[in-house]
């Protein structure tokens, strides 16, 4: 991990800092930024390229903590004791002012400001003596200065994605990290290396990385950068740095102990949030099931239609006078079957992946809530200890002060990200369902023209209404 360069860091409030990688150089002075989150300038983040001072400002990895430069003390937000900034803590650099939040959202809505483009493709199977696995090619194109070059191509396997997710969660326990596709599909006989499964996974992984890239904070995460750019051996060695297994385990034990205490008083807005998450999770799961079921029923419908149509052709062989009509109907049925398949593929492109992603998101959200609660529980337990004078009150008071800050930061981070997430969810759901409706409209629009052709061949035997009118004319 490279040392932080002194140049490029101006001592201004909320200044972003640069985390250097090996061999990375600081191309230009960092700009003054009122928005530490993402390090981007509040007004026009993408205008000055490269956004040198903006990488990974708000991510604090264990490794970084060790390398903190003295200059950090100039930064307002880094006035806290670094020892508290372990994996479990969150950088207090999330914006709290309304203005900064608006700007944050704005940053996302302007696609032309995007400076990081990622694609995931070319799944390849690798066979070793121990195992078989799939790697995906990841191509990154960027104009950001902190990246060594403007284009990167690496190969990653699912495990690597899992690692990345874990790191992001560690660094930002109360941010809403995008979900990863499941490890494997439990129900149904889906082989791990079945083509559809791989393709679905590939698309989900693509989405995962792009969501991170679009996230104002996560996009500057150092591990993210490593993930996108490092060669295989570099990644392995990078992975090995990091909290050891033991400390991670200790962390987990502490977290479990805290969660068992329960949350004494969850602030009102988080109660609401929790309620929303619970209901949302239930509903989105149902919608996922419903959508999958519709897909299945449509497949079976299309299959039956494939058998239904040809019977009419067969029949037309023995009916001279009905040949045209029968053939017309057979062709309608055939087109209907094809149109159904198109509708199904529309479903599986647009609706199903989105709904499923939000199912995973809802699980994510519950985890985020838990972590927030844990942070608060930590504070609560210290406060309780103070009340009962269990330990040295001065030390406790100091610890409580830090924890209070930590809780405040965590809460603010979550609140802001929550708004962002709600907004995105609304858009995604809206567009997925609108697309589905459009697919259906297009499906139904095909037939009137086809049907009319059949009717044109009626040759004067037209009798509207058919059967129902017979026998009722009295």
């Amino acid at each position, binding site marked *: 991990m490279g040392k932080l360069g002194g140049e490029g860091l101006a001592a201004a409030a909320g200044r972003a800092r640069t985390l250097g990688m090996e061999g990375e150089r600081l191309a230009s002075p960092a700009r003054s930024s009122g928005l530490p989150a993402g390090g981007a300038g509040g007004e026009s983040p993408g205008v000055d390229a490269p956004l040198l001072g903006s990488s990974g400002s708000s991510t604090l990895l264990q490794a970084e903590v060790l390398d903190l430069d003295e200059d950090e003390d100039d930064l307002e937000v880094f006035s806290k004791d670094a020892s508290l900034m372990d994996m479990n803590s969150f950088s207090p650099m999330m914006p709290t002012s309304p203005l900064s939040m608006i700007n944050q959202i704005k940053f996302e809505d302007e696609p032309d400001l995007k400076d990081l483009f990622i694609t995931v493709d070319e799944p390849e199977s690798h066979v070793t003596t121990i195992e078989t696995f799939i790697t995906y090619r990841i191509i990154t194109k960027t104009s950001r200065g902190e990246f060594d070059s403007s284009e990167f191509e690496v190969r990653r396997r699912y495990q690597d994605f899992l690692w990345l997710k874990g790191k992001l969660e560690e660094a930002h326990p109360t941010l809403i990290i995008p979900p990863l596709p499941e490890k494997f599909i439990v129900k149904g006989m889906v082989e791990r290396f079945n083509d559809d499964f791989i393709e679905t996974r590939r698309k989900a992984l693509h989405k995962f990385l792009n969501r991170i890239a679009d996230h104002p904070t996560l996009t500057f995460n150092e591990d993210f950068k490593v993930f996108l750019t490092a060669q295989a051996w570099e990644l392995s060695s990078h992975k090995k740095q990091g909290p050891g297994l033991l400390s991670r385990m200790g962390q987990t034990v502490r977290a479990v102990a805290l969660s068992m205490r329960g949350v004494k008083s969850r602030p009102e807005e988080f109660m609401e949030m929790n309620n929303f998450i619970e209901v949302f999770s239930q509903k989105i799961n149902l919608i996922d099931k419903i959508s999958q079921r*519709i897909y299945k029923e449509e497949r*079976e419908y299309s299959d039956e239609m494939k058998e*239904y149509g040809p019977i009419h052709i067969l029949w037309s062989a*023995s009916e001279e006078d009905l040949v045209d009509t*029968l053939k017309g109907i057979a062709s309608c049925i055939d087109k209907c079957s094809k149109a159904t398949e198109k509708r199904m593929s529309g479903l599986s492109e647009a609706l199903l992946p989105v709904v499923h992603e939000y199912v995973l998101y809802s699980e994510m959200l519950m985890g985020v809530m838990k972590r927030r609660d844990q942070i608060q529980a930590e504070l609560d337990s210290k406060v309780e200890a103070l009340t009962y004078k269990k330990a040295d009150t001065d030390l406790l008071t100091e610890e409580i002060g830090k924890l209070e800050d930590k809780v405040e930061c965590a809460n603010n981070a979550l609140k802001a990200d929550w708004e962002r997430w709600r907004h995105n969810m*609304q858009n995604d759901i*809206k567009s997925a369902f609108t697309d589905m409706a459009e697919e259906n*409209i297009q499906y139904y629009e095909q037939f*009137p023209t086809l049907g009319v052709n059949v009717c044109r061949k009626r040759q004067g035997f037209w009798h509207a209404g058919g059967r129902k009118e017979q026998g009722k004319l009295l």
Partner: protein
Amino acid sequence: MEQAPPDLERQWQPAPLEPLGHTDAGLLAAVGEEAEGSRDEVPGDGTEHALGLGVLMTENNFGLKKIEISVSEAEKRTGRNAMNMQETYTAYLIETRSVEHTDGQSVLTDSLWRRYSEFELLRNYLLVYYPHIVVPPLPEKRAEFVWHKLSADNMDPDFVERRRIGLENFLLRVASHPILCRDKIFYLFLTQEGNWKETVNETGFQLKADSRLKALNATFRVKNPDKRFTELKHYSDELQSVISHLLRVRARVADRLYGVYKVHGNYGRVFSEWSAIEKEMGDGLQSAGHHMDVYASSIDDILEDEEHYADQLKEYLFYAEALRAVCRKHELMQYDLEMAAQDLASKKQQCEELATGTVRTFSLKGMTTKLFGQETPEQREARIKVLEEQINEGEQQLKSKNLEGREFVKNAWADIERFKEQKNHDLKEALISYAVMQISMCKKGIQVWTNAKECFSKM
């Protein structure tokens, strides 16, 4: 209302009232009559049938009278059956109205209740007395080609309703048939509630029915059936097979389509519950959910209409059996003829042998002659005489059988041509109305999804 093209018009004169149990000769005479003169109301084409009208001979006059027949109600009843056990059955109300030409108004003339088994009795009677006619079929006895939503229970109201329509259709078909409409038993079926069963049975038609075994035997052994009937038999087999297959798959398609629509209904419920926690999206979700409910419930009407279409196809599925019945009758008559001819030929041969004294064929007489000695010339003369009488008789019989057979073929073929026209017309209409149903389903679909899309885009 379009009239059918003129070549389907049939014209005839009213026949004298036929006795209840008509003999075959009487029947053939009636059938063989040529039409003369013209009438303004002419039955026998699809349009009459479509209008629910039939033409019937009335009891006391020779004028053709236009009547309307409807099976207007169905009622569950309990009673005691032949073995004195309690049973439940459905009775159907048949109403007959006569239409006055002058003012077009109709007057209810008869109304009575009949159950399905009586319809069956009527049809069996018609089959025996009009073997050259393609007798219209009854609606199915038990529900077949059922998909999961339909009930296979005969007492199910939907089944009863469809059967009611099918029975009405049957009566209309008979009433609009140029020959069947004049049958007295049919007339009594519509007008005489009590005692009708006894009246039918008194005709002794069950005795006149050809045995199944005899018919089967004839089918296998007939040597020279009219080719057209053989082709017709193949056609009816194909028709039956293709329509059965079509109905089976259609039932499965209906099942799937039902599934697709109904699952969408779940969206409605879930959207509604979800909208409770959403501020901006709530309204859009809620109203979109409503449209999903509309979509899901629209399939019920669509499939009900399709069931009527299926019934129309089923009628022709059962008509295939009626066609085969006519073919069987022909084969029976032809076989009979062939046997008679064969018998005559052998008798002639015998006679010749006796006359000339040569024995070329094996006969019991020949054996006994060998064993017990030659017969006397007087005995031989006697035998020749007997044989000659038999041969004469045989020749007469053969002639009349031949005539019968030819008449049968002529009349049967005339009815088959009529049937073909009717079938082509009806099936084409049914198929087109099916296409129309699909179009209307699509239009509904477009509407619902356009509304839903609007709601979604406002979320």
